Every structure is written in C-alpha cells, then in structure tokens.
C-alpha cells in the first residue's frame, strides 16, 4: 500500500517535469557547455561538434583528415595562389534562403575583420582577398602558397546579412537548426527542412550538458541520455556494457597523447636522456592499466588512419639500454641500486584523475632507471599557462582532432614558440625547419606525403616529444540508435543520417566499430 502511494507520488512528481523526448528524438550528453554556437567564435571541442550540426562549410575532413566537398561541390587550385570553389545550389539556411557565394564571402570577410575579434582570424591570415563572381563560384586569393589553408575552409557559413553581427548568430545551413538554447542546461535542435537529401530523422536532437562523468553514466543506464561520445573511465565502460539497452562501441581514434620535453633544461636538451626516458616507459602496460586497453601505443603524432602517416617502429621498453644511455649522457647512477637518483625532474600535469594515474605510472617507470620525478598537479588553466610560458621540464599533453600535418610546423619549427605556435619546449632543428617549411608550401598531396614521412622520421629520431598512445573512441549509445557512425575525431556529423528505431530494438547497430557487449 505504501509502495503504491510512493509510486503514485513519484508519478505525480514526474508529471510536474518537462515532457519526455518523443520516440524519434535523441538525447546526447556533453560534459561542458559550448562557449558559442556561432562558427566565427566557437573554438572549444564542443562548439566545433555543434557547429558541425548547425552550419555547412566549404569542405569537411574525412576519416583520413583529407578535405572533402561539403558546400563546395568541387574546387580547383588554379595556380599556387588561387583556389576556385564551385558551390552546390541545394543548401538552404534554416530560414529558407539559399546559400550563395556572397554568404561565403561575407562570412570570411567578417572573420578577417579585426573589429570582430574572431579567434579564427589567425587561420585565415594567408587569405588576401575573396571574390564571388556568381552565386555558385567563390575565388580565394592567397598571399603565398599554403597547403594547409584548405583546413581553414571548414569555417561554417552564415547568411551574408548576419555575418558582421557582433552577437551570436546560430542561423546556419547545417542538418539541424536551434529551437532553444538554455545555456548550461540543454540545447534543443530540430531538423533543417531545407537540408539536401531530406531533413535528418532525429527529431528533436537534444544536447544536454551533464558535467559529472558519473552522472552521465547513470543517465545512460536510466535512459535519460542515449548517446555519449566522451569515453568515461574504463571501469564505468565495463559497467555500462552490462545494460542490454546500451551498446558500447570502440573504434580507433586519432587523438594522440604525448610526453613533452623542455629543451631549455640541461638534462632534457640531451637526446640520450630523452631516448632513455622513452625506453623506460612501458607503453603497452600504460595502455592496459590506465586506459583499460582502449588505445594503441603511438609511434608518432599522426595516427595510422591519417593520409600522411608513415609507419615507424615503436620504442619498446628496454631498461638496460636506458641506463646505458644515461651513463653515456654523463649521468651515472651515484649508488647503483641504492636510493640516490641520477638527477631529478619535475613533471607537471592536470588534476584530472586519469592524468594523475599516468603521472604516478611514469614516476615509477623512471625511478627504475634512476630518474627521480616530482609530480605536481595543477588546475588546467594554471598548467596551460605554465606550459605556454615554457615553465616546465616534463609534462603530458594531448592533440585532439589533428587535421593537416602542418601541425609539425606549428609544433616543431624553431620559430614557432608561443604565441606564434605550439613549440613550447624550445626544440630547434634546421632539418626539421626545412622539411616543415617545404611541407606547407608543397600543394601536391603525394609529394607532401613524402615530405611528412621524412618529418615523422626526424621527429622519431630527435624526440621533441615521446608519443604515448592514440586513444580509441568509445561511444556509448542506445541500442535503438541506428545508422550512426562514430567519427575518429569525435564529430557528430554522423547523426545527420541516423534514426531511432521504434520499441526496444534488440539488434546491434551497424558499422565496423568493435562492440564490447555485442554478444
């Protein structure tokens, strides 16, 4: 009797809440609010994910990070300084207007306008002018030959009339449009009726902001959320895999985690020391015990799926060789197997639990070759400020969503110290400089592949960083979600052609990614 009363009470309480998502709808959880839904301003990962659903760009990347047509039906490099894009005529903004060359031109010019203070401006710095001779043709003129420029053509296009608005503009021509954005809580999207090939089937697509990882997992178990793309801790993934209404899908990812060295430190400036550190690490064990096996030991920054990847041997753990290298580098062990270290280093990392576990594992590994590591954990903003200003010896970081291999120029060219680039450790090599400069000037893909193979071999030799692993993408989704292919870099464009199957679908979803609970 009491239970019945409680059940009735809970029913009444539930009735006071908001209406449940219709069967054709999908609720997706993200851990943080995107800073902006406007393609001119959003730079965080979740802003990029949502921009992909709301806006159309000239090009978009494929799984190998090559640029593929999106709004542009095709493009032609007329000469090293001129690219001509032919636009499709079947894209429409959510308000019904057709997307034309003038919209593309206005959006790019707005981003280039310093008054707008767009964070995307630096990526377009090489663009000298842009013409729209007719509604389906866009001509871009560059200041110099610059192969990575195509990556910048992933900029979402806004209607020309709104392109210079200083406020947030969310009107786009992507597969979905914004119905309601309750910041910090949820963003409700509905299909864009004018999307080429017909509007998406997911109606509505609700993006909920659920910051706590444990609660995301509990929401999935309860059914309040039907898709998460940010992998929870390995033990939680195992727990979720036991729920019959969920599918855990694992596929190779492109995010790379690495150990960064500061070359200004006299110990780490020596290649033998860096190599000894690389040889002291057991990456297979790190992947197995810290990530529950959900990663591949990395041989470089580019994952094997990337078009410019070149296979290189991964350094296996070899403690004897690591100790010999340290001896030859001028750091003999003062007391053999005794407690005194050869030298001490400070390792800075964020206070995220996984990062702390990695730090402890690296500390234990380096202790075996006589290097004492002091681990210091920081809040992310503080850590990042220290890393950017070169105030570190060792730290572990990650690259997410690597596009053009010009990343090697930004990360390893001797002039690319912050704020110009990402060379935070002060690595300098004339060979690397020459190679990365030619890589960004060369426009032919095959010749670039050859150049970047040399770049990767040079990086493996010089060890400006020690690549640790390429993290797998782990997606947990409702078994009812069909037709969704998770992308290697975590974008959500795969939801465009996905749908929710009626009832309690017992079949496993399509697609090649490995399913942990498919049996």
């Amino acid at each position, binding site marked *: 009797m009491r239970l019945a009363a*409680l*059940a009735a009470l*809970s029913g009444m*309480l*539930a*009735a*006071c*809440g*908001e209406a449940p998502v219709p069967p054709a709808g999908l609720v997706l959880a993200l851990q*943080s*609010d995107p*800073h*902006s839904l406007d393609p001119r*301003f959003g*730079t965080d990962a979740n802003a990029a994910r949502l921009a992909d659903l709301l806006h159309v760009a000239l090009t978009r990347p494929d799984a190998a990070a090559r640029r593929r047509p999106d709004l542009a039906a095709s493009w032609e490099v007329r000469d090293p300084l001129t690219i001509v894009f032919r636009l499709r005529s079947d894209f429409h903004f959510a308000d019904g207007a057709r997307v034309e060359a003038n919209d593309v031109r206005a959006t790019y010019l707005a981003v280039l306008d*310093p008054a707008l*203070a767009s*964070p995307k*401006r*630096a*990526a377009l*710095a090489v663009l000298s002018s842009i013409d729209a001779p007719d509604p389906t043709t866009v001509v871009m003129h560059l200041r110099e030959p610059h192969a990575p420029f195509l990556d910048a053509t992933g900029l979402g296009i806004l209607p020309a009339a709104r392109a210079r608005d200083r*406020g*947030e503009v969310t009107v786009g021509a992507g597969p979905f449009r914004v119905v309601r954005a*309750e*910041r*910090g*809580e*949820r963003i409700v999207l509905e299909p864009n009726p004018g999307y080429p090939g017909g509007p998406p089937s997911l109606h509505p697509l609700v993006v*909920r*902001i*659920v*910051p*706590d990882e*444990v*609660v995301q997992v*509990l*929401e999935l*178990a*309860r059914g*309040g959320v039907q898709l998460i793309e940010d992998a929870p801790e390995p033990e939680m993934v195992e727990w979720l895999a036991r729920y019959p209404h969920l599918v855990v899908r694992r596929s190779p990812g492109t995010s790379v985690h690495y150990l960064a060295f500061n070359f200004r430190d006299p110990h780490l400036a020596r290649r033998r020391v860096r190599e000894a550190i690389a040889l002291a690490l057991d990456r297979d064990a790190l992947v197995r015990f810290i990530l529950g096996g959900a990663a591949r030991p990395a041989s470089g920054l580019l994952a094997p799926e990337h078009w410019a990847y070149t296979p290189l041997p991964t350094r296996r753990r070899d403690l004897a060789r690591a100790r010999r290298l340290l001896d030859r580098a001028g750091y003999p062990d003062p007391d053999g197997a005794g407690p005194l270290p050869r030298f001490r280093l400070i390792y800075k990392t964020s206070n995220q639990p996984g990062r702390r576990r990695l730090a402890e594992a690296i500390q234990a590994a380096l202790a075996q070759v006589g290097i004492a590591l002091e681990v210091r954990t920081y*809040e*992310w*903003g*503080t850590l*990042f*400020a*220290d890393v*950017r200003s070169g105030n570190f010896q060792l730290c572990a970081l990650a690259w997410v969503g690597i596009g053009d291999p010009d990343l090697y120029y*930004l990360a390893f060219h001797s002039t690319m110290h*912050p*704020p*110009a*680039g*990402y060379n935070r450790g002060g690595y300098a090599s004339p060979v690397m400089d020459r190679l990365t400069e030619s890589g960004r000037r060369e426009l032919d893909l095959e010749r670039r592949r050859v150049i970047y193979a040399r770049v990767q071999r040079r990086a493996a030799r010089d060890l400006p960083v020690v690549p640790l692993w390429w993290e797998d993408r782990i997606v947990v989704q409702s078994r009812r979600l069909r037709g969704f292919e998770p992308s290697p870099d975590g974008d959500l464009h795969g939801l465009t052609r996905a749908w929710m199957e009626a009832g309690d679908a017992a079949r496993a979803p399509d697609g090649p990614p490995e399913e942990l609970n498919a049996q």
Partner: protein
Amino acid sequence: MTGSLAGRRLVLLVPTLLGVVTLVFAFLHLVPGDPVEIMLGETAAPADVAALRRDLGLDRPLPAQYARFLVRAARGDLGQSIAFRTSVTRAVAGRYPATLELAGAAFILALGMALPLGIAAALRPGSAVDRSVRLASLAGACLPGFWLGPLLILLFSLRLGWLPVSGRGGLAHLVLPATTLGLGMSAILVRLVRTSMIVALGEDYVRSARAKGAPEWRVIAVHALRNALLPVTTVAGLQAGALLAGAIITETIFAWPGLGRLLVQAIDARDYPLVQGCVLAIGLTYVGVNTATDLLHRAIDPRLRDAR
C-alpha cells in the same frame, strides 16, 4: 526600529561587497592564465591579442582596471563576459533563478526535517527516538554531497525508478539535488533544535504554562519553540548562505544550470568579469539572507526590538 536596522545593514552592505569584490579581483589576477589567449587560441596573431586586450581594458594597470570595474558596477554595468560574449548581468540573471530555486528548496527541506525531528527528540531525551535522531543527524552531517548525490541517484532513479537522474525540469527534478544539498544543513539544525528545545522545556515559564493548564501542544509550539528558535534562526541564516557555496558541487553532480556551475566555467576560462559578477551575486544573496535573519530575530524576540 526594524526600518533603521535594515538601513544600517544596507549601509554595511557596501563595504562588505567592496571587500568581497576587491579580494576576488586581486586573487583572480594573481592566478596564472590569460583570458585573451584562452579566447583567441594559442596561435592568434600578437596584433589581434593586443587589440582584444585593449578592447577589454586588460592592457591597463591593475588599479585602473579595478577602478573601471567599480565605476561600471556602481552604474549596474558588470561588463561583458569574455568567454560567452554576452553581458555579465544577463549571464548571471539567467542562472540565478536556478540556484535560488535549489538553495530555497534545500533550505525548506532542511527546516522541514529539522524542526519535527529535533522537537520529537527533545520531548523524550534518551529515548529510542532521540537516539535514532541523533545517530541519523550525525550520519547526515558526515556525508559529503559528491558521495551522497550519486548514491541517491542509484537508489531513487536507477533502482526504484521514481525520480529523474539529473537536470532541471519540474518538482521531480528538484527532489534529489535539494535533498543532497539540504541534508547536511538539516543534520546540524536537528541537533540544535533538540538542544534548544530541551533547554526551553526545562525553563520556569514552561512549568508555569503547564501549571496554568495550557494544553501540551501549546506549551511546546508557543512557549518552548518560540524561545528555542532564536539560536536556530541564527545558525539557519548562516547555513543558508553556505548553501550557495555548497550548491556549486550539487549543481555539478545534478547538471543543475545554476550560478555555481557558471562560476566554475568562468574560472576555467579566466573570464574575470563573469567571475566577479557571480561572486557579487552570491555575496549580495549572502548579505541579504543575513539581514533577513536579523529582522526575523527581532520579530521573534521582543527584547531585541527594544534594544538599541
């Protein structure tokens, strides 16, 4: 008298908030991290970084930035959020109702549990009821929100399926976060109500009321409880302010779109104006609640009304 008290508290409000804002301003600028670099990305052109820094007034000396902030705040303009590119007032006003709703519900729940349980325990000290209440309140005071929240979700949402896991919607969404936030406060208040009631029930005026033949409910509710409430209101007022701070964790656990979560996001992005706006709103609420507590004190205790 009450009007003059409110006036005095309003006058005190200004230096209190000034102190809070000054401390936040100073500490925030001591912490490493640059909002412009976070906003424009790592590879922004130095000219763009300098231009935006100039636009935001971040190129000025700290005292000048501080003076500018104060002048604008006095006019009700808290500036623009660096990360969200919207007015700070709008961002804070958008989240404030959610925090107020959560903290208010937690407060009502805490008082609603503390008063009957505390009175019940005080009526028969040493009884099984008293021991159970004391044990439960001890446990309640020891449970941290980050542990209690997921535990409540596991039980009431996953196991029993009665309540939603997280988010803000209707009354059902409010139950678990309000319980998580209010339980600790309730545990403290239960013990205080019990102690105050035991003391009050032993006073001469209670014995006199009973001797005059007043019904027991009247003795408890009017004669004893009114006097016992004085220390309870003081502590409840202070705890209500603490609820706002505790709401940061509860809001994160339950995906509650309140001021606490906005504050965390603002700190991560080194969004100075937004952090200051959030802290100002929390500070104003804290001072407001404490002023209300003082006024309530005077309403309950006539002796305070006559005191100068």
